[in-house]
């Protein structure tokens, strides 16, 4: 008997995953100062990775997380490997495991994402400071964390709502 997740084409989900990660990466590197007053970007990339790693883990294996982090490093001009390492470690530590994967309630998801965010930025700060051979700037990291915590409930809510309405699946599942 087919499970609910097998009902729709996985290709649609895969396309959604790739598209969302790409958009997150591009927005992360986009010339935001061109828009008046909008200078701080939440870490959209980590949000996308976190949600996909928990909703559809098969689309977010370690190699994909590493590649996304490395792409972000190259796009933003950061030393290579900083965000790759940060995402890899934080996602592997804090992703939901077990039979059910990600819960369908918002608070535990927010809590887990907060921990992932803190760990990722902590690692990025340490690795970045090591690469720069001086202390990296803490302020943008803190602002990014705050902005991400403020923005994350919206995509998380949409994802959870979609999961509830479609059983255990997400886009295409």
């Amino acid at each position, binding site marked *: 008997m087919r499970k609910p*997740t097998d009902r729709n084409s996985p290709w649609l989900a895969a396309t959604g995953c790739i598209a969302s990660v790409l958009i997150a990466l*591009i927005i992360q590197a986009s010339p935001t100062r061109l828009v008046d007053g909008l200078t701080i970007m939440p870490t959209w990339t980590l949000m996308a990775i976190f949600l996909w790693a928990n909703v559809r*883990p098969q689309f977010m294996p370690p190699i994909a997380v590493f590649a996304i982090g490395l792409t972000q490093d190259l796009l933003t001009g950061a030393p290579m490997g900083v965000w790759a390492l940060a995402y890899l470690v934080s996602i592997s530590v804090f992703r939901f495991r077990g039979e059910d994967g990600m819960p369908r309630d918002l608070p535990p998801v927010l809590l887990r994402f907060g921990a992932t965010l803190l760990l990722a930025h902590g690692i990025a700060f340490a690795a970045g400071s090591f690469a720069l051979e001086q202390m990296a700037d803490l302020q943008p990291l803190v602002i990014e964390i705050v902005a991400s915590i403020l923005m994350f409930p919206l995509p998380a809510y949409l994802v959870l709502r979609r999961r509830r309405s479609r059983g255990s699946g997400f886009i295409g599942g």
Partner: protein
Amino acid sequence: MASRRSTRHDGEQGIRFSRTLFIALLVVSGALIAFDRPASRSAPFASFRAGFTDVSAPLLDLVAKPLRAIKNIGPYWRRQGELVAENDRLLQQLTEARYWEDLAYRQRDRIEVYEDVLDVESAAIEDRIGAWTVADPRGPFVRARLIGRGSDAGIRNGYPVINLYGLVGRVYETGRRSARVLLLTDLNSRVPVMADRSNARAILVGDNSEFPRLDYVGRAPDIQPGDRIVSSGDDGILPRGLPVGEAVATRDGGWRVRLYSDQAPVDFVWVWPFQRVTAPVPESEPDIPLTEEAPVADQAGADQPGAEPAGDGPTSSEDASPDQGDAAVDDSDTNATPPDGTATEDNR
């Protein structure tokens, strides 16, 4: 059981989480961080990064276009109500500008004459390379911008980048169709500057804040709040006189600079193909006394109180050594047909 040890199955999705791969990726990340340090980045890493930005720049440019359009919506509607007042102000400025335009033309002609006489070449405005900003990451590790033109357009590492108001930074990573600009506010940015009023020298040091710091200003720097800060050109990398910003005094007695380039979003920029000033190569023949000895002799004469400027060189040289005496004779001969400005000055 053995497979359970080497791989982990998570949930119903059947995702395999290979420990070996995970550890390998961690090692690769660590190695990349260790070897891709900005201070000691090797050529292969730099070229790889430049190649990547070349590939990603068109995509980022596509995203930047609608953002530019969005940016213009707000200012367009805001300015509609101010157009009449602005028009009056502009007409007044235009009247004043006609005087300055006339003066500028005269100065330009005069400078051209001077440049011809001195055999000096300065980069003309039309030599500058215009480029759009296509990416503007504001991360904790680097303050840089990606522009949509590269070595194909003649851009090289180290070229200064300016916008309508002043110096933005300099190019530090160049691909074929894109280049990355290190902003003045970046942690790694160091630019020799000076106060336009007093020529007081300092180093503009980026510290990721909006107002970069002025270091090495001395104990009693001749800098005042509001002084115009320009590039001094002391390093030979940047041209002298590029407007940088305004001096701002800090509470702890230090100095910072409010950047002119921040008056507008760094959207469209010009890259100035400024050729680095290199140190002169010493002549292959060491025994050329004419230009080497004469200033020393002049200096020796000048150090003595009451010394007469005219004829001082030969007298001092004769006292110094027989060889230098010969040189002094040659020098006096040279003064008869002056080879440079110094000799001409002596003749006068």
